């Protein structure tokens, strides 16, 4: 197997609040291959968001290293960091679109920030809006869009700078099951078309089953288990995984109802 594209080694993260210390990530080791869709699941407070915030350096790790491609991310200068961040797209549960900008303006934002010319921006935005199937809403403001449409714009914005990886932090949690599926389909589609590596955080095993090849289960800041989705579903070893499997949500049924292949 080729060297992993993303390598997280012995990563710990400690938050200090006044005198108290919270160890939120404990000695995390993960390897993610290029082109993979990698799922991370865990209960609220397990440290999932903190982990991906460490990957795009919105947080600095307390110890350990994270490597993405050729970037050793804890060694980046401020300037390099902004360039590195442009290589990582991220989408959020609450979309975080800019209300002052149209759909076009939102997707143009990362390109403006990267200093692209007007013509290049125009061309690229048009192309990406096409890719996520929302060209007809180009001049709409976020206030005029449904949740699913907003998340498509979020995805388009995240893809604008041709990132190497896409981070998704509960991107479908605020959406109804049918809309969730359509957004997940977009992610699968761009993964196939662009060979984009995706890290997907979720509370739902069904989302992982539907979308991911490999996964890790995070439990109180520790990796409880990791491996291929197939293996873990066939043979769950951690308590968290078993609880999740027991409380399976109804996404599978929805997929069945809307005529998917069943999952």
């Amino acid at each position, binding site marked *: 197997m080729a060297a992993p594209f993303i390598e997280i080694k012995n990563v710990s993260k400690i938050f200090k609040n006044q005198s108290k210390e919270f160890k939120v990530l404990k000695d995390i080791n993960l390897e993610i291959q290029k082109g993979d869709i990698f799922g991370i699941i865990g209960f609220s407070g397990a440290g999932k968001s903190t982990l991906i915030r460490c990957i*795009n350096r*919105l947080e600095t790790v307390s110890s350990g290293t994270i490597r993405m491609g050729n970037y050793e991310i804890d060694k980046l200068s401020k300037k390099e*960091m*902004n*360039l*590195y*961040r*442009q290589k*990582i797209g*991220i989408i*959020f549960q*609450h979309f*975080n*679109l*800019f*209300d*002052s*900008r149209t759909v076009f303006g939102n997707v143009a*934002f*990362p390109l*403006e*920030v*990267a200093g692209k010319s007007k013509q290049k921006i125009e061309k690229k935005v048009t192309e990406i809006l096409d890719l996520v199937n929302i060209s007809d809403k180009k001049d709409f*403001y*976020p*206030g*005029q869009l449904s949740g699913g449409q907003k998340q498509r714009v979020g995805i388009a*914005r995240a893809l604008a*700078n041709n990132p190497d990886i896409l981070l998704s932090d509960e991107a479908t949690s605020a959406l109804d099951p049918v809309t969730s599926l359509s957004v997940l389909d977009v992610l699968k589609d761009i993964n196939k078309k662009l060979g984009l590596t995706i890290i997907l955080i979720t509370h739902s095993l069904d989302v992982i089953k539907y979308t991911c090849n490999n996964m890790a289960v995070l439990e109180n800041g520790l990796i409880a288990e990791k491996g291929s989705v197939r293996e873990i579903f066939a043979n769950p070893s951690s308590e968290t995984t078993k609880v999740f499997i027991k409380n399976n949500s109804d996404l599978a049924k929805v997929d069945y109802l809307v005529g998917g292949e069943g999952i």
Partner: protein
Amino acid sequence: MKEFLAQVFSVEVWEYVLPATWQTIYMTAISTTITITFGLLFGVLLYVTDKDGLHPMPIFNKVFGAIINSVLSLPSMIVVIIFLPLSKFIVGVSYGPKAFIVSLAIVCIPIFSRLVENSILEVSKGKVEAAKAMGASNWDIILKVMLPESLPTLIRNFVVLTITLISITAIAGSFGAGGLGELAVRFGYNRYRTDILVAVIIVLLVGVEFLQLFGAFISKKILKKRHLV
């Protein structure tokens, strides 16, 4: 009553009131321009250097915040007097509306700085985080995210500022700044010219009401365009 109203709207009264109105507008307009420039700058600076800001500088932020607060905590009349010599020196004129412009701005800059800071703080943390995650520099975040996102609130606060300024020019009037304030004191109070006093009040009421409606209209228009109302 009818006679009194006729007197209030007589040519004689408005020969006093109109020039004074222009003086007040002149003072307010120039002081407002200065206040907006520095208030925006200082408000952004307060936000950026906060310990949770884009570029934390806690010590600077504390000192700067304390200076702003100390000016804020003094009665505006006292601030006007304290800075009057400086104001006269900068403008090079020692009486009339012009002499008071800087002094008036100094009273209002702390107020507007805090209003700007609060408007910016209303922008959700998620948006800032999204911008950061896309590799935006602090300048990008301020100019392309924070200010445009908070524009409707900024405009409403801008109106609050202008109205405050008008009321402070009235106070400055009793120190020789001219304008409607001075007219009210000199004629309305000292010489019992109630007709002039009433005319001054009418101008102020109409002016402030107009500003209020205008600000609300523009702010609403932006919100409507963004489909947020």
